[in-house]
Structure formats: structure tokens, C-alpha cells
């Protein structure tokens, strides 16, 4: 009996021991089979570029602000963002997903692993897009976490950096990016190539893009408190010298006419995967028609009557207005991320700030012609399709004759430059920044503005709900009203037209 007992006890114990010794191996199945733990630089780069272009450069921030600058118009049931009704929930994805996690977090990871792996070109591109995205965040939301961001273990609730310090950091980051690209001591485990949808691995062009961003950011602060416009103009000119030299340097992302691969404007505004309510603004169409600007054939499509017509911003109704032009919105159209005309417009503006009208004229002329060069094929194609010539001019020469010469005094010339830049930069976020910085062109608030006292378009996004909920102390310290009431506040650099003598016309 006792021996049986011992036998049993022994058996049970050894059975248990058997299990426990192999226990750690048995339980070692928690490595995720669905998601990799390590990925290579090319995979990250493609993800960053695809996300950033779709979600930011041709996504919500531009859709919304293009209606605010009255180039486009939203035709959904009121209220909507077209009348400045954007609340903390509406702007949450842009901050939370598109920017801080999808793009910038991965830029940080890519720059870190690429540096570790000595693949400096990848680090350079990551920093360029990181800086670019961060500029858009601060331009939309003002002060924002930067120095304490992307470090959850140390800073679970990151403090907000001032916009001034963010812009200083972005210049440093772009300098680092350029330095990375210039490095020759890296490895060539991977060479940037087809994973780069923008330049296909042409690092010289990436460097030029970095300089464009540098110039853009210097100009951004031209009228910022405590900054000197001439100093900023000089800095910008120094940067543009190293930037795009022609439209062939343009940063573009080409989409395909295949299900799930189409241009984001097409998916959003034309095909109706989500909505077809985004149309051309009545103001923009009218201005183009009044000035006989042939670029209307590229910028806008025909309405149902084969004419160009715009939708009055903020007015409810009429679906039959001109859509965004196919140059921008065809299924296989490219998204214009950054383009050569901007370089020349920055130069023109900088020269005007410095009082050098002739130099400005040269740059301005190049800018406007570059804009026409970019669109000329489309103008020819679409005007040829225009059976009844819907009142739009096709005479490029006449237009250039009428508009190519800057007029004095400087503030008139300045107005010309900014107005032309406004047209040339269609579908780029920079249009909204330039309008806020210079108040050119002059815009009044849309009809049915959500806040009835508004006299001009909204000047910023509210802070997003996720920060209000989960980083409330820091976001509340910024003193910006919550929800759509924020949209009449201004970000730090937005002082116009007070600090801008040339802006008064």
C-alpha cells in the first residue's frame, strides 16, 4: 500500500516535472506570426511616402484648406468644413494617425535604423518627410509636441514646443538630412530605388527638395514676431539656389488607374469612393475666367453643360459644377507634392522684400512660365475637347503679355507674385499658408459661416480630441479654444497683414 502510494506520487510528480521543464518551450509561441518585428528600410520608406502623400499632401488637410482659400468648395449638407465647422474630432485623424504615428513615428524609426545600418540616404529622406510633416502640423495646429514627442517611455504626455522652436528644429533637421545624403561613408545594403515613389532614388533631387523646404520655412517666418523679413529673404534665397532648377525636379507621386491604386483626389472627389462633394470654388473659377487664364483647362473640369462653373463657398445646393481638373484628379494623375514654380515664386517674393524689383521680375517670369510649362499639355488637350469654348481663353501668349510684367510700386508687384503663386500652387497645402501669411488674395468668409461673426476664412485647426483627452494639461496650456471656436485664432507666425508692409495693397 505504501509502496503503491510512493509509486503514484512519484509518477505524478515526474509527470508534472516533465511538463514544467518543457514548459518554457511550450509557452514560447508569442511571437506574432502576422506582423514582423524587424523590417527593412525600403519597406518603411514606401510606407512613409504612400501614407504621407495620400493622407496629408492630398488628404484631409488640403481638402479642407483648399475650400478655405476658396479654390475648391464643399457641396455636402450643411454644416461642414467648407463653412469652417471643424471640431476636435474632425481634425483628430490628421494629427493622431496621419501625422504623429503613420508618417513621423516611422520617419523617426527609419532615420534611426538607417543610421544604425549606415544607409544614410534613407535617413536623409526620412528626415525630409519628418520635417515636412511637422511643418504642416505646426502650421495647422500651432504649438505642438516635438522635442518630447515619439518617446512614450520618457514622455507619456509630451509637452508642447513653441512654433518658433519647432521651425528652428526643422531647419536643423533638414540640414541633417542634407548632411546624411552628402555622406559617402555609408553602406549599400540597399540603395534607394523603386521603393522611392517620388524620385526613384535620385538623391540629388531629394537634396533639392530639402532646400525647397528650407526656403519655404524661412519665408514662413518672414513676418513672424521678432523675425526680420529681409533676413528671412536672404536665407530663403541662399536655399533656393540649391533647389529645383526646372519642372523636371518636381516632387510627384504617380498613381495608377487600377482599383485601389487611384489618385486620392480621384478616389475622394471624382469616383465617389467616399464623396463627390468636392468641387471648384465659384471664386476661383470666376477669377480665372476674368483673367482669361488658360490654365483653367488644367485646373478645372467641365460641368454638365460643358462649361466652367464654380460652387459658391458655403452655399448649399447645385451639384452640377466644375470638378477638380483631371490633371490633378484623374485616376492615374500624379499628386504634385512640391514643384519648381514655388522655388521661383519664393525667389520673386524674397527679392521684393529686399526691394529688388528687377531680380524679382526675372524670378517671377520664370515662375509663371514654369507654371504654364507644367500645365501646357493639359491645356492643349482639354481646350481641344472644348466644343463650345465655354468662355475660357486659350491664348497663353495674351495671358503672359498681360500678366508677366511686375508693376511698381513693390506692394503691387508683391500682390501679383502672391496671386500668381496662389494659382500655380493649386492642390498644395502651401496655398493656405501663403494666404494666411500675406492675406493675398483677399478672401472674405464663406456664406453661412459656422461662426456668424467670421469675416475671413478660418485660420487654424482646433487641437485634436485625442490630445484633449489624453494630454489635456499640455494642450490646455496652449490657451486655444476647444472645438470649432478655435478656427478664428491664429498660429504664431500668422501676423499678416500687420507686420507685412508689402501685403497692404
Amino acid at each position: 500500500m505504501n509502496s503503491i502510494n510512493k509509486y503514484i506520487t512519484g509518477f505524478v510528480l515526474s509527470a508534472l516535472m516533465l511538463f514544467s521543464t518543457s514548459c518554457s518551450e511550450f509557452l514560447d509561441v508569442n511571437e506574432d506570426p502576422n506582423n514582423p518585428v524587424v523590417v527593412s528600410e525600403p519597406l518603411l520608406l514606401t510606407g512613409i511616402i504612400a501614407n504621407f502623400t495620400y493622407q496629408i499632401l492630398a488628404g484631409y488637410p488640403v481638402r479642407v484648406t483648399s475650400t478655405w482659400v476658396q479654390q475648391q468648395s464643399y457641396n455636402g449638407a450643411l454644416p461642414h468644413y467648407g463653412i469652417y465647422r471643424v471640431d476636435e474630432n474632425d481634425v483628430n485623424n490628421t494629427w493622431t494617425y496621419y501625422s504623429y504615428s503613420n508618417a513621423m513615428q516611422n520617419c523617426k524609426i527609419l532615420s534611426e535604423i538607417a543610421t544604425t545600418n549606415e544607409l544614410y540616404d534613407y535617413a536623409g529622406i526620412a528626415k525630409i518627410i519628418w520635417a515636412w510633416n511637422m511643418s504642416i502640423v505646426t502650421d495647422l495646429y500651432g504649438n505642438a509636441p516635438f522635442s518630447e514627442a515619439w518617446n512614450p517611455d520618457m514622455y507619456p504626455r509630451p509637452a508642447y514646443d513653441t512654433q518658433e522652436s519647432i521651425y528652428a528644429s526643422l531647419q536643423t533637421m533638414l540640414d541633417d538630412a542634407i548632411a546624411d545624403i552628402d555622406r559617402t561613408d555609408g553602406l549599400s545594403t540597399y540603395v534607394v530605388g523603386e521603393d522611392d515613389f517620388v524620385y526613384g532614388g535620385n538623391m540629388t533631387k531629394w537634396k533639392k527638395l530639402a532646400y525647397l523646404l528650407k526656403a519655404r520655412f524661412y519665408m514662413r517666418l518672414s513676418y513672424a514676431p521678432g523675425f526680420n523679413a529681409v533676413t528671412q529673404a536672404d536665407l530663403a534665397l541662399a536655399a533656393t539656389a540649391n533647389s529645383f532648377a526646372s519642372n523636371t525636379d518636381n516632387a510627384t507621386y504617380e498613381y495608377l488607374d487600377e482599383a485601389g491604386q487611384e489618385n486620392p483626389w480621384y478616389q475622394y472627389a471624382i469616383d465617389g469612393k467616399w464623396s463627390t462633394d468636392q468641387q471648384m470654388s465659384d471664386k476661383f473659377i470666376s477669377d480665372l475666367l476674368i483673367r482669361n487664364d488658360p490654365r483653367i483647362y488644367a485646373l478645372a473640369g467641365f460641368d454638365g453643360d460643358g462649361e466652367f462653373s464654380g460652387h459658391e463657398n458655403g452655399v448649399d445646393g447645385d451639384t452640377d459644377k466644375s470638378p477638380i481638373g483631371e490633371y490633378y484628379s484623374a485616376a492615374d494623375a500624379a499628386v504634385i507634392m512640391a514643384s519648381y514654380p514655388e522655388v521661383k515664386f519664393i525667389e520673386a517674393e524674397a527679392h521684393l522684400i529686399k526691394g529688388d524689383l528687377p531680380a524679382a521680375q526675372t524670378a517671377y517670369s520664370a515662375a509663371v512660365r514654369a507654371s504654364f510649362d507644367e500645365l501646357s499639355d493639359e491645356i492643349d488637350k482639354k481646350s481641344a475637347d472644348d466644343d463650345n469654348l465655354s468662355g475660357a481663353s486659350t491664348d497663353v501668349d495674351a495671358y503672359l503679355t498681360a500678366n508677366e510684367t511686375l508693376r511698381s510700386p513693390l506692394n503691387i508687384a508683391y500682390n501679383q507674385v502672391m496671386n500668381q503663386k496662389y494659382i500655380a500652387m493649386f492642390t498644395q497645402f502651401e496655398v493656405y499658408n501663403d494666404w494666411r501669411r500675406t492675406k493675398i488674395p483677399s478672401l472674405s468668409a464663406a456664406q453661412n459661416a459656422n461662426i456668424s461673426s467670421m469675416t475671413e476664412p478660418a485660420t487654424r485647426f482646433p487641437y485634436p480630441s485625442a490630445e484633449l483627452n489624453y494630454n489635456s494639461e499640455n494642450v490646455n496650456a496652449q490657451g486655444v479654444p476647444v472645438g470649432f471656436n478655435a478656427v478664428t485664432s491664429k498660429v504664431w507666425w500668422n501676423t499678416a497683414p500687420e507686420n507685412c508692409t508689402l501685403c497692404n495693397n
Partner: protein
Amino acid sequence: MKKILLISFMLLSALINESWAQERTVSGNVSSKEDGSTLPGVNIVIKGTTDGTTSDLDGNYKLSVPAEGGILVFSFIGMTNQEIEIGSRSVIDVILSEDAQQLNEVVVTAIGIEQNKRTLGYALQNVDAQEIVNARETNIVNGLAGKIAGVQINSSGGQAGSSSRIIIRGNSSLLGNNQPLFVIDGIPIDNSQNQAAPNTVEGSVFNGSGSNRAIDIDPNVIENVSVLKGAAATALYGSRGANGVIVITTKRGSKKGSGPTVTISSSFGIDNPIVKGFQHEYLQGSGGNYRNGLPAGAGGFRSQDPATNPTGLTATQTSVSWGPSINRMDQYTLDSIGLPKIYDPRDDFYRDAKTLENNITISGGKDIISYLVSYSQLDQEGIAPGNEFDRKSLMASMDVQFSDKIKYSGSINYINSYNRRLTEGNGQRSYLYGLNFWPISHDVTKYLTDDGTYYTYNGGTFNNPFWLAENNGRFSTTNRFILNQSITYQILPWLSVSNRFGVDFYHDLQEDHVNIGTRGTADGRMFNADITNTQMNNDFIVSVNKDINDDFRISGLVGNNINTQTYKNDLIRGIELNIPGFFDISNASTQEAYEYDSELRNYSAYFSAGLDYKNMLFLNVTGRNDWSSSLPKNANSFFYPSVSVGFVFTDLLPVSEEIFPYGKFRASWAQAGNTASPYNTIQTFTQSAPGDGTRGAITIPTQGQNAFEQTNIKANNELVHELVTEIEIGGDFRFLNNRLGVDFAYYNRKSTNQIVDAPVAPSTGFVEATKNVGKVENKGVELTLTGTPLKMDNGLVWDVQVNFAKNKTVVNELTPGVESIFLYGFTSPQIRADVDNGYGTIWGQRFSRTEDGQLLIGEDGLPIPDDALGSIGNVQPDWTGGIRNSFSWKGITLSSLFDIRKGGDILNFDLYYSTYYGTSSITADRGSVIVWDGVVDNGDGTFRKNDIPVVKDQTYYTGFYSSYDELFVEDASFIKLRELSVSYALPSSLLESTPFKNVSFSVIGRNLWIKSNFTYWDPEGSLGGNGNGQGFYHGVTPGTQSLSFRLKASF
């Protein structure tokens, strides 16, 4: 039933040391007084010693006894002890009678242990086979509704094959699983609601949800369902039992030796939809003008005189029902087309759905073998055309007593379930969109023009539900095996080892068909998802049972459990189809593929030790250590203890057994807790998905390149298991010869260290982080009253059972800086877990109020919206209950079950739309005047009572009323006559000359009567299916009521 339990109990029950001294032997046979059958496993002890034996399979025993004197004590659970003087006899046959006084109900507790309910220190409630079968519910979960105190059940909707949520003692886990573990004959089985497509591709909000997999269980094979509610009851299941356990015991054959018994049952039922909440007076149109919704050139008509409105006849049609009253048609229309015909689109669409269920069971056995084979076939139509649920279940079980020491028990169950559903939820593909907004003046049955073109009533936006039923569908075909193999070796009378191995395997082929031409998805699309789920489970148990002396008895076990769960889902999706009605992936222009795999392994060691004192005081201690694969290696081990005490104090009281035969107090303390879901401890990357919400997107790989990004949920390599600590006290009292019984329980269950993907400041680079956070407390009482108010000599018996439970869930803490977590829905409205407003808070657009809670009214006479979204209700009920009455008399049984839910809100988001479209009954009062009860701000800090009248016209409803979620929060209380059944069993005298042993007929009604203030009448429904985010009623098929007829015969 009892007999089967007794036989099997034998193997675990107390056996006594065999006597070594041999003076003389006594032998004999023990049998039961009630049915004359022999009783195996009866304890036979020589009084005052530990010497004794047990009766064998045939009830025979043989025992060495002292040369002189001695008294034998015969004891058996459920029977009255008998003491017999040996005297000089060498053969002593004994007949034991059932003990009516003591409640010797044998119940199945954790790990399949059968115990006398008397010995338990925690609450446990049983539902027997008849109650399950009589529910006539396809889904076993629904069959439990109203029958167990503290168990809350909510059906997700009226489509056949819909899931149902079951919660015991409230929601303990913030975002984790809150539903109990299902165990069949000791084998845990899966009850997931499998969503094939990732949420980002096709979430339930836009599609509806499917079945919970417990729907595969065939009610016909269930002998008994035992519900283990508290942590002490489930402690031996460790982390997996943290939310309670539903222990299902299947029917087994009998070894009695009679020939096979064949039982056939057949039932036929009709389900009708419960539809309410629509207006029947106002026609399609706008501004009081009639528009008939026909396409231009196909009879399109608009009731405006062309003289005054020349474009009237060709004017754009509208989808809304803001036209004229059928009672006040304008003359122009009457002259032009006559009085439009009126339909009832909801009534025209839904059908009387037939259910046919047949079962054949063959069971029997002889000597050492018993067997049972059961085959059931269920064919259920849904009330929506095209919706069906079919189930075939074949179960075979066998028990073999190889020898006195070795017993084998095994079963295999094959189930084939097929569900075809219509798309529900938010969006044009949902048949409820077209149907709920369908104007009464348009014939829903007509959706093809004369030349066969598909059109719908408004020229474009919505789909015709009949067309959808014919062309689109969501399919799930499940093939499932549940295998159970158990062997017990009785090493010594007091010591046994057993091993139980089980596999639950299923393959679920889910398909989605969206045909070309579907409004909203004009190009069509499809997917096929292969889901396989495998759970393997092994328990190795060493049990001891020993009487130490007359007063003390110990029982205990040491066990080991290994459990693995693997899940695999391969989904291929095709978008933009080329050939209509051809749903093969080759027909898609673009294909997308998704894969999801998951594996969870758990290893455990556990013990249970019980000490009984004089069959009166029971102490039980358990402990279980789990090692889980989903936690970091250095923190994957956790120990859950429990202590429970039961005290049958009536044994000490000098009270008449007739008045107060039985009274027991129970108290317990226990800990349990969930482990993490797999893959939360290591940071990973995921394929990029550039897109805008769930609509526009770039499919990766794109242009020949793959793309990855870091997962935006921060992994946590310091994760620990969740912890639930529960205290329970209760009692079980019986009075008046057991004709009145009261069972109550109070519990307090605190959950901490919740594993939550908690939202974080997005500027950290992450959207959420997996954390151990939060404190949730569930407090409640459960009360069950049982009574027999009538027990007449003529055989009339009236039994009553009342269940009542009240649970309060308090979210005490989430994580620093987080007050609220999203559970389900849209940005607005949605369901949240919220520190201030509790678990299941409805969150949405609400009105501004003064500090004292009055509505603030604007100068236009309408309430002013609040700037921010906020709490507008909570879905948790105040209390739930059930009342069962049954009368039986000479083979006739009449039984009713009322199921009651009091309090709690439901968000009827359908009303948001149907009010806008003018079809909801709310809009039937259009044209009347309202003065909102509220105050108007005088602008100087004072308020005046609002007296501004507002006309409830089209603008009022479409512009104002339909914009505020707060207006669509409704009371979810109900009283349902869940079951009403009459059955008649033919008297055996009548059957004597026939081959039949039993023949019975039943008529069963379900939900024949409902009392509820819910606009749609039946407030059970949830777009999220059985998930944590309940109370979101939107695009959900209405509930049903049914009448079934059942015939059962055995021979």
C-alpha cells in the same frame, strides 16, 4: 438522470480502506427503493471504524466484519443512510430510499467534478434538459434567458443565426472578453463571433455581425446546464473561468440492460417579425407634395400642377416620406392618377419563417457498456427572405467500464452549421436602409422595370431589400468536431487518476457576395475567408476521497491542464466584379488577401482540498497556477486561490424538519483573472494601409512595392495578467417540506490590472498602448425563489421559480489622463466605458442644460445643442429577472416564463434616419405644435420658462429632430412572455399495448407578449453582435415571436 450521475459519481466518491483483519464476511446487494435498480458505489462502513467497502456495478458487496456484533452503515449520496445490525447474518440485502429531507442534488462543478450541492460554498444554478429544449431557441445562449439569476442575455437581432451575448455578474473586463467559458463534458469549447474581414476593411458597423459559435451546440443532446457564476465556483478554471463558466453535460446511454431506446422528436415552428414604429399615413414626397418615386419616363409623377410648376412632372424624385396624408390628397393628384395605393412595406417584406427540427436518439447499454447516438437536423428560415440557418449535429458517446478499476468515457460530435444572412448595419448595402425608409406609397415587391432594369423607389440611393436578398448575401458554413476522451483508473478505493483529452475543431468558410449593380457598391465585390479554430485541452487529475472518521471526510485533487488555442483566417477579397452573379475570385478585377493567425497556449497546475465535518460544515480550498504564452516570460505565471465555506446550520437547530428542513450559509473568497490576448508584448510592424477612414485607400502592395509601418499600439513587455477578486456570501433555505426555497447571493467583484489598449497622447507616436490599468467593480445580489404553492392529491402540482438579480458595474479608474474608452460605434454616437457614467455609456450629441438640469431653449423655440458630445444614457439594466410558473396534472404540463429587464437605455440609431426620412411613427404627428419643456436664457443670468411654440413639420424633423442623438436614446426595459408551453404526455396505461414507452405533444410559444416602451417594441438587438459595445441598435433585424409544435416519442 440521477442514476447516471450516481453511477459515474461512484468513481470519484469515497471509498474506504479495505479491511485487513478477516474474521468473517458479510455479503449482499444494495438497491434503490424508488425504481428497484441496483446501486453501485454505495459506501458500506462498519460503524465506529474506518473499515468498509463499496458496492460493485451490480450493487453487490462483500465485506469482512468482526466476529461478533457490529453495525453496518450504508450511505449513498441522495439516499437516506441506513444502519443495520449484522447480528449473525452473512447476507444482508438493503434497500435505500431517496432522501427527501436533505437536498442531495448532485451538480457538476468545475473540471467536471460532481458534487452534492449541499457541500458547495458558492452559488450554482442548474437548467435541465427540458427547459433548454422547450425554449425552442436555435442558439443555446438564448435558451438560457430568464432562467438563471445573475445571467444577462441579449440577442443581437432577429436574423436566424444571430449571435447572442451572455454576461454573468456584469462586465468585469474593460475591453477584454466578458463572456463565460463554455465547457461540454469537461472540454472547453469556443464561443467566438468570428469576423472574417478586418475592421478596417469591412467592420460590423457597416455589415452587421454573425453567429457566436456556441450556436453549434445542439440543444437536443444537452442533459443539463450548470452555471458557475462566481470566482470561487470557477477558480479551478483559472484565467479562463474568470467570467463564469457554462458547464454543459450531455445525455448518456444507460447501462441498465434493456434494449436500445429510440427517441424521436420532431418540431415545426413559425416565426413572425416584431415590427412596430412606422407611420402608415404619409406618402412619399416632400413638403406635402406627393412624388411616386418612379424613374423619369417610367411613370414618374409629382403632385404639383404643371400650370404653376412646369417642371413638376419631370422633377427629381425624392426618397423621403414627407408627402401628403393619404386622407387628404390634393385634387390635382386625384385627377391625374387617382388615389395612390397604400402598402405596408415592412409587412410585405418580412415573411412567416418556418423552422423544422428533427432529432433521433438511440441509446442503451448493457453490463459494462452504454452508448448514445443522436442526430439532429434543424432547418430554420429567417423572417427576412434569404436568411436561413441550418444545423446538422451527429453525436455519439460511449461509456465503458472495462473493469472495477478502469472506466472509459468518450464522445464525438460533428456539427455542420450553415448561415446565410443579409447585410445589416449602416449603409446602402444594408437591407434595413431600404426597408426602414421605404415609403408606404411604393410597392416594395416591385424592383424591376418592364425591361428588367433594377430600380428602387427613389431613383438611386437605397437598395430594394428583395433585390438584396436575391443578389447579395453573407454566408458562413461551419464544420465542427468536438472530441472527448476520458479514462479513469481507480487505483485504490480512495484514490483515482483520470485523464481527459478534448479537441474542439472547426472550419468556418465565410463568404460575402455583393452583386454588380448594388447601390453604393456598383461594381460588386466578394470575399472568401477560411477560418479554422482548434482548441486542444488535456486535464490529468489525481483525486482522493477519504473518510477520516465518522465526523471528518476529506476530498481533494491535484491536476494539470494543458490548453492550446489556434486560430487561422485566410481571406481573399475581390473588388470590381465583371460578370454579374458569379462569385468566384477569378471574376474580380482586383484581389486583396489578408491573413491572421493566432496561437495561445496555457499550462496549469491546480489543486482542490475539501474537508467535510459531519456532512454539515464544508470547507474547500483551491489553488491554480497558470502559465500563459501571451504574457512576458518573466511574468507569465500567476496563482489564483479560493476559499469557500458551506454551513448547513439546520442540522444544529431544533426546528421541525417540516417547517425548516434545510438552511445553509455560504461564504467564499476567490481570485481569478484574464490573461492577455496573444502578441501584445513585442512591438511589431504592420503592412501599411494608406487611406481615409474605411473608404478611399491605396492597396498595398502598390506598384510592385510592399510597405510596412510600426503598429500604432505600443506593445508592453511588462504586462501581467488581469486580476479579479471576488467575495461572495449567500444562503440556501428550504421551508415547509421543501415546498418553499430561497437562495440568495451577494457578491462584490473587483477587477484590477485590466489589460487594455488604452488610448494615449498621440504625440507619443502611438495611438494606444497595451497596459494594465483600471479598476472595475461589480456588486450585486441574486435571488432565486422556488416554491410549490399547490400540490394536490389529485396530482395537480404548481411550481414557481422566480429569479432576480441586480448588478452594478462601476468603472472606478481607467488610466491616468483617460476618463473614457471607446467600445463601439461611430465618433458620434458611440458606446463607451466611462469613469463618470459607467460601463456601457451611450455617448453622443446632446442638448445644453442649465445647472439644475433644465433644457436650454433658443429663441427659435428649439433646444440648444451642447458644444461637446457627452453621456446621453447607459445600457446597463437596473435589474433583471425571470418568473417561471408550471402546472402539471396527469401528464399535462403548462409552463410560462416571463423574462424581465428593468432599466438601462438603448440607442435607437435607426430612428435618427427613419425620422429624417419621415417613415418613423414619431413623425406621424407632423403638423402639430410643441412647446419644449425648458427654459430660455434671458441673457442676464436669469431664465424664463419656454413658451415658444414650434410646428413639427418636415423641417423640424429633418433639420432639428433627427440631428440629436439624445432624442433617440430609449428605455430598454422589457417584460417578455419568453415562453409559454403546453405539453401532454400520454399516460403509460394507454401505451402498454403499443411499442411506445413515451409519447408527448407540446405547443410552445416564444415572445408571444412583450411590454416595452421601445419604439420598435423589442429592445433586444445590437449591431455589434455579442461584443462589449451593447445597446447600439442600428440596422438590426427585429426580434421575432414564434409558435412551435413538437412531438416526441420513444420506443
